[in-house]
C-alpha cells in the first residue's frame, strides 16, 4: 500500500467517524434532525403562553429556534412591549446578531421602541462590530441619532457599579460613589439602600440625585430609608429622602405619613412632607386635607403651596373660598422651595379662581385680591394679577372699575394704569364702553391719572370710531381735550391714515405737524410714493424734516427701490425733504452707491438744524463702517462740520458697533 492509499483510508475513516460523531450528538441528545427541531420549535411557539407571566418564563428558557418560531408566528411588532423586551433579552444571550437585525428592521430602524437607546448602547458596548455593520448602511441623520445614543450611554456609566462604588467609597469620593449607587438601584434597590447607608455613615459628600432614585428605594423599604434620615447632613438630602418617604407612605393612606411629619423639626423637609401629604389626601378628601393644612402648617410659601394643592379642585366652583387663602402669593416664591416635585402651581390655582369669580362678581374678585396683597406704592409692588383683573373689570363695567380706581391712592392707581396688562385689556373694549369711561374721567381727581386714562381711552375709541372719539372730546374736561384728539387721530392713522388726516383740523395748529407726521409714517408702510406725495401736499408749516425723517425711515423698510427712486428725483433745493431723509437713510444711500460719499457729506454739512445734522452724519458713518471701516473712521475723526457737543461720543460708539469683525 502506497502512502496515498493509507492516507485515503485514514481520511475516509476520519470523515466517517466525524460525521458519526455529529449524528450521534443529534440522535443521542435530541433524536431530531434540523427540520424536526424547527418543527418542535414551531410546535412550542404554538403553545406560547397567553398570560404574560408564563410567556416571560417561556422566553427566558427559549432556544434560538423557539425564538425564530415565535418571530415567524407573531413578528416582533405582534408582541406587547413587555414580551418584545423579553424576546430581545433572550436574543442578547443567544444571538446578538439576530437581535441587531431585528431592531434595525423595525420602523425607523427601531427608534420607535422606547428601549431603542438602551439596546443600541448595549450593542455598542458588547458587540460594536455588529452595530458598525448596520450603521454603515444608514442615512447620515440616522447615524447621528445612533452616535448620540451611544455617547449618552457611554457617559452615563462605565464599569461594574458595585466595584466602582467600593473603590470610590474607599477613596472618599462621594459623588462618584453616588453615581454608581443610582446604577445599582436600577436592578438591586435593596443593595442600593445598604450601600447608601454606608456612604452616609462615612460622612461622604453626596450630590443631589434624581428624586426617582430615592422614591425607588423608599418604595422597596420605607423603614430602612426612614432610619437614614438622621444621617443626612444637608437640607437637600434630608428633603429628598423625606419627600420620597412621604410619597410612598401617603400613597395608600395619607395618615400613615403623619408620624413622619410630626417627627421632623420645622424645616424644608417637613414642609415638603406636608405637600406630599396634602397631594395624596386631596385625591381622597380635599376638605379634610385643607383642614389639616390650615391647622398644622405655619404661614409661608410652603403652606400656600399645600393650600393650592387642596384648593385646586374647587378653584372654579368656589373661588370665594380660594382667593383669600392664596392672594398673598409672592412672585417666584414657589421656585425658591427646594426639591419642588409637585406640578401644582399656586399662582395658576389663584388665577383660575380669579377668572371664575371675575365672571360673577369682578368687584369681589378685585377686592379680595387687593386685600390679600395690596400693591405697594414704592414702585416694587406691581401685582400683575390684580392689575390684569382691574383691566378685565373695566372691559365689562367701566363705571365700577373707574369708581374703584378713583378710590385708590394716587401712586397705586397711576402705577396700575401704566402696566401693559391693564392697557391691553382696555384698548380692546368696544368704543361705546370707552365713551362711557370717558364720561367718568372727572371722577379721577388727580390730573396725572386722569390724563393716563384719557390717553388709553382715546386710543381705544380712535382705533375703531374716530368720529365718535372727536365727538366725545367735547364731553371731557377741557384740559385733556387736545391731547385726546391727537391720540385718537394717531390711533386711527394705523387703521386708515387718510381718514385720520381728514380730522387733523380739529387739532390746534401747534399740534398739526406731528399728526401729519404720524399719518405720513403710516402711509409709508404701504406706499412710499403716496406718503411723499402726502407730505409734499402739506402747507409749509406742516411739511417738516421730522415728517420726512419718520416717513422715509418706514418707506425704506417697506420698499427700498421706490424710496431710492424718490431720493434720486428729489429737487436739489428741497432742503426740508433732504435733511429729513438723510437723517434716516444716509447710510443706505452710501451703501447703494459708495461713490456718493463726498456728496452726501456735503449735503449733511448743509443741514441747518444741528441735531438733524448729527443724526444724519451718524447714520452715514454707520452705513460706511459696514463696507469701508477705514473711511468711516476717517470721517468720524474729521467730520468737517459743526456738531452738537454730545455727537462725537455717540458717533464713536455707533461706529465701533457697526464695524464687522
Amino acid at each position, binding site marked *: 500500500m502506497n502512502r496515498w492509499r493509507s492516507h485515503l483510508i485514514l481520511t475516509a475513516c476520519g470523515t466517517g467517524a466525524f460525521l458519526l460523531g455529529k449524528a450521534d450528538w443529534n440522535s443521542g441528545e435530541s433524536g431530531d434532525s434540523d427540520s424536526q427541531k424547527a418543527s418542535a420549535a414551531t410546535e412550542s411557539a404554538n403553545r406560547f403562553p397567553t398570560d404574560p407571566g408564563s410567556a416571560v418564563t417561556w422566553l427566558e428558557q427559549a432556544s434560538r429556534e423557539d425564538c425564530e418560531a415565535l418571530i415567524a408566528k407573531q413578528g416582533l411588532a405582534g408582541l406587547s412591549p413587555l414580551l418584545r423586551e423579553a424576546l430581545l433579552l433572550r436574543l442578547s444571550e443567544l444571538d446578538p446578531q439576530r437581535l441587531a437585525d431585528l431592531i434595525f428592521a423595525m420602523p425607523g430602524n427601531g427608534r420607535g421602541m422606547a428601549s431603542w437607546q438602551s439596546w443600541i448602547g448595549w450593542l455598542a458596548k458588547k458587540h460594536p462590530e455588529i452595530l458598525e455593520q448596520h450603521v454603515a448602511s444608514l442615512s447620515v441623520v440616522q447615524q447621528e441619532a445612533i452616535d448620540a445614543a451611544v455617547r449618552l*450611554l457611554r457617559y452615563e456609566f462605565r464599569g461594574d457599579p458595585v466595584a466602582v462604588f467600593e473603590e470610590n467609597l474607599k477613596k472618599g469620593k462621594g459623588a462618584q460613589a453616588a453615581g454608581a449607587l443610582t446604577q445599582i438601584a436600577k436592578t438591586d434597590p435593596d443593595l442600593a439602600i445598604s450601600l447608601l447607608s454606608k456612604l452616609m455613615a462615612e460622612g461622604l459628600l453626596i450630590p443631589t440625585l*434624581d428624586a*426617582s432614585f430615592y422614591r425607588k428605594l423608599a418604595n422597596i423599604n420605607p423603614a430602612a430609608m426612614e432610619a437614614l434620615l438622621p444621617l443626612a447632613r444637608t437640607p437637600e438630602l434630608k428633603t429628598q429622602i423625606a419627600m420620597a418617604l412621604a410619597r410612598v407612605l401617603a400613597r395608600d393612606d395619607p395618615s400613615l405619613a403623619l408620624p413622619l411629619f410630626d417627627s421632623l423639626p420645622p424645616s424644608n423637609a417637613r414642609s415638603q412632607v406636608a405637600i406630599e401629604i396634602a397631594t395624596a389626601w386631596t385625591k381622597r378628601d380635599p376638605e379634610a386635607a385643607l383642614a389639616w393644612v390650615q391647622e398644622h402648617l405655619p404661614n409661608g410659601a410652603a403652606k400656600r403651596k399645600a393650600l393650592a394643592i387642596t384648593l385646586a379642585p374647587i378653584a372654579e366652583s368656589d373661588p370665594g373660598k380660594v382667593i383669600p387663602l392664596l392672594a398673598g402669593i409672592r412672585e417666584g416664591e414657589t421656585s425658591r422651595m427646594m426639591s419642588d416635585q409637585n406640578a401644582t402651581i399656586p399662582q395658576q390655582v389663584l388665577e383660575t379662581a380669579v377668572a371664575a369669580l371675575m365672571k360673577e362678581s369682578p368687584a369681589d374678585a378685585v377686592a379680595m385680591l387687593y386685600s390679600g396683597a395690596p400693591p405697594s406704592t414704592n414702585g416694587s409692588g406691581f401685582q400683575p394679577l390684580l392689575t390684569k383683573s382691574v383691566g378685565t373689570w373695566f372691559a365689562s363695567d367701566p363705571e365700577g372699575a373707574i369708581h374703584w380706581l378713583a378710590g385708590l391712592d394716587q401712586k397705586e392707581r397711576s402705577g396700575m394704569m401704566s402696566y401693559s396688562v391693564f392697557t391691553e385689556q382696555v384698548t380692546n373694549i368696544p368704543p361705546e364702553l370707552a365713551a362711557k369711561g370717558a364720561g367718568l374721567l372727572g371722577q379721577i381727581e388727580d390730573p396725572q391719572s386722569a390724563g393716563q386714562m384719557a390717553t388709553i381711552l382715546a386710543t381705544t375709541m380712535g382705533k375703531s370710531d374716530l368720529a365718535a372719539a372727536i365727538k366725545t372730546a367735547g364731553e371731557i374736561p377741557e384740559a385733556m381735550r387736545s391731547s385726546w384728539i391727537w391720540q385718537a387721530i394717531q390711533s386711527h392713522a394705523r387703521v386708515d391714515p387718510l381718514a385720520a388726516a381728514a380730522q387733523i383740523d380739529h387739532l390746534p395748529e401747534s399740534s398739526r405737524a406731528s399728526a401729519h407726521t404720524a399719518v405720513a409714517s403710516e402711509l409709508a408702510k404701504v406706499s412710499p410714493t403716496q406718503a411723499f406725495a402726502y407730505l409734499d401736499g402739506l402747507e409749509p408749516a406742516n411739511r417738516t424734516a421730522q415728517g420726512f425723517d419718520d416717513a422715509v425711515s418706514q418707506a425704506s423698510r417697506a420698499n427700498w427701490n421706490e424710496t431710492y427712486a424718490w431720493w434720486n428725483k428729489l429737487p436739489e433745493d428741497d432742503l426740508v425733504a433732504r435733511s429729513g431723509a438723510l437723517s434716516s437713510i444716509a447710510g443706505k444711500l452710501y451703501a447703494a452707491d459708495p461713490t456718493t460719499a463726498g456728496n452726501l457729506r456735503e449735503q449733511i454739512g448743509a443741514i441747518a438744524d444741528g441735531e438733524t445734522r448729527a443724526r444724519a452724519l451718524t447714520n452715514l458713518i454707520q452705513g460706511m463702517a459696514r463696507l469701508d471701516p477705514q473711511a468711516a473712521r476717517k470721517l468720524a475723526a474729521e467730520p468737517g462740520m459743526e456738531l452738537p457737543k454730545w455727537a462725537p461720543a455717540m458717533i464713536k460708539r455707533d461706529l465701533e458697533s457697526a464695524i464687522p469683525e
Partner: protein
Amino acid sequence: MKREIIIAAFLVPLAFFSGRAMRTASGAQIEPSTASQRAAKSGDRPAPQKKQRPDSSVPHRWGNLRRQATMKPEALIEELLVSGSYGYDTNWLTEHLLATHPDQLFREFKSSGQDSSSLVRCWCLADPTRAIPLVLGKTEPFSTKLDPENYRPPVVFDALGWTDPALGMKTILELPEKQRHPVFFTSFLSGIAATTPSQTAAYFQQIESSGPLPAHHFGEILGTLAAVDPQHALAWEKSHPELRSGAAIEGMIDGLCKSDMEAAMGIYSELPDKRYARNAASSISRMLATKQEGLSSALDWLEANAAKSQLAEHKGNAISVWAFRHPDKVAGQILADPELLSDPRASELVLAAGRKEELIAQIDKLPPEAGSKLKELLGSNGMLPDATDNPITPDEILVQMRKSPENAQAEWEGLPEEERGNLISKLANQFNTSRDPALTLKLVSSSPSHMKGSGVQTSLGRLASMDPSAAAAFAEGIEDRSAREAALKAVHSRWMLDDEDAADAWLAETQKAR
C-alpha cells in the same frame, strides 16, 4: 498497513469527539435548545437555571421582567410614577402601558401632577397613527396643550416620516394653522431623512410651499435637507440670495457639515458678519473636532474664521468635543501641542482622558512650564496617585471633619496658614449642595474676614432650611456689621418660606435687641 490501523485506532475516536466538540463549540445554545425541546415535549418547562452574575450593561433583568409581567396595570403605573419615566430601565414600561392602558396611564400622570410630555413623545414615536390624533384632539385625558413658545413640544412626527410620509404630510397640513407647530415639520422631515433620504427634497419643497416658518425651525429643516441631499440644498440656497445670514443659513451650514464640509466652509466664508454666525462656526468646528485627527484642523479653522470675540468659547468647545470623543489620543496630543494646556478648558482634556498613568508619564516629557501645568491640572482634578501631591480640597476637609473630627482638627491646624486661607476662601465663596452647611460655616467662621463671602449666605440659607434656629444663632453671632446684616437677611428670607410668622418675629426681636 498495521501502522495505519493503529493510527486510525487513535484518530477515529479523536475525529468522532471533534465532531461533537465542533458542534458544541458552534452552539452555546445547545443546552437551552435541548431543554426547551424536552420541555415542549413534556409540556412542563424546567425552572430557570442559576446564571452567572448578569451583564450590567444589558437593559433588563429576567427577575424584573418576570415580576412586572405578573403585576396589575395600576401597580405598573405606580412603579413608573415612583421610578420616574426617564430611567433607561423603565422606558419600555411607558411604551408597554401606552399600548395596553393608555387612558389609565394618562389619567394617573395628570392627576398626580406629573408632566405627561414623556408619554406623548414616546407614544408618537411608538404608535403614531393612534397617538397623534388623540394627543392633538380634544379627547381627555390625551389632549395635549402645545405651548407655541416651547421650542421642542412633545408631539413629534418622526415616526410618520419613517413609515408613511404621505400620511404624515397630509396630517400636518390638515391641522388648523394655529395648532400646526413648526416642530411638526422639523421632526417629520428628519424622520424621512433618516430612513428614505432620497425623498427628503420632495417633502422639503412641500413644506416650504406650505407657508412661512420661524427662521430657527426653517434652518433646521434646511439643515436636514443639506445633511442628506447637499446638492439640492445648495441649489436652493443659490436661488435665495436674500438668505446670506440668519438662522436659516446657519441651519443649512450645520447640515452641510455632515455631507459636504467644503461647501459648508465656503458658505460660511461668505457670511457678512461672523459675529452673527456663532452657531455656524460652532457646527463646523465641532464637526471637524469629532474626527480623530481633527483637533488641530478645528482650532486652525477657528483661528482663521471665527469672530474674535467668540474664539475662546469655540476653541474650548472644540477641545471638549474632541477630548471626549478620543480620550485615548489626549496624552499624545498634549505632547504634540503643549499649548493646549493653557486653554481655559484644558481641564476637560484630563477629565476626558482618564488614562492617568499615560498622562502622568507626559509630565516629564513636556517642556518644564507645560509639564507643571499638566501636573497642576491633574492635581486639581484629583488624578495624581500620591495623595500628598494633590492639594487638599475643601470637600476632603469636610469629609475628614465628619469622619474623624479630632484628627481632622489637628490636621487642619497643622496646615500652612496660606493653604488654610485658600480653603476657607473656597468654602466661603463657592456653592455646593453636597456640603454640610453647619460644618462649612464652622470652618469659615474661624476667619472673620471671610464672613462676607457669597457662599456664607448660601450656606446660611441652606442651614435655615434645615435648622432655622441654628442658622439664626449663627447669623446673630457674626461680629462684622454688614456681614451680619446680610446673614440675618439670608436666614430670614429662607425661613419665611417655611414659617413667615416665626421668621418675622425673630428678625424683629433681633433688630430690637440691637
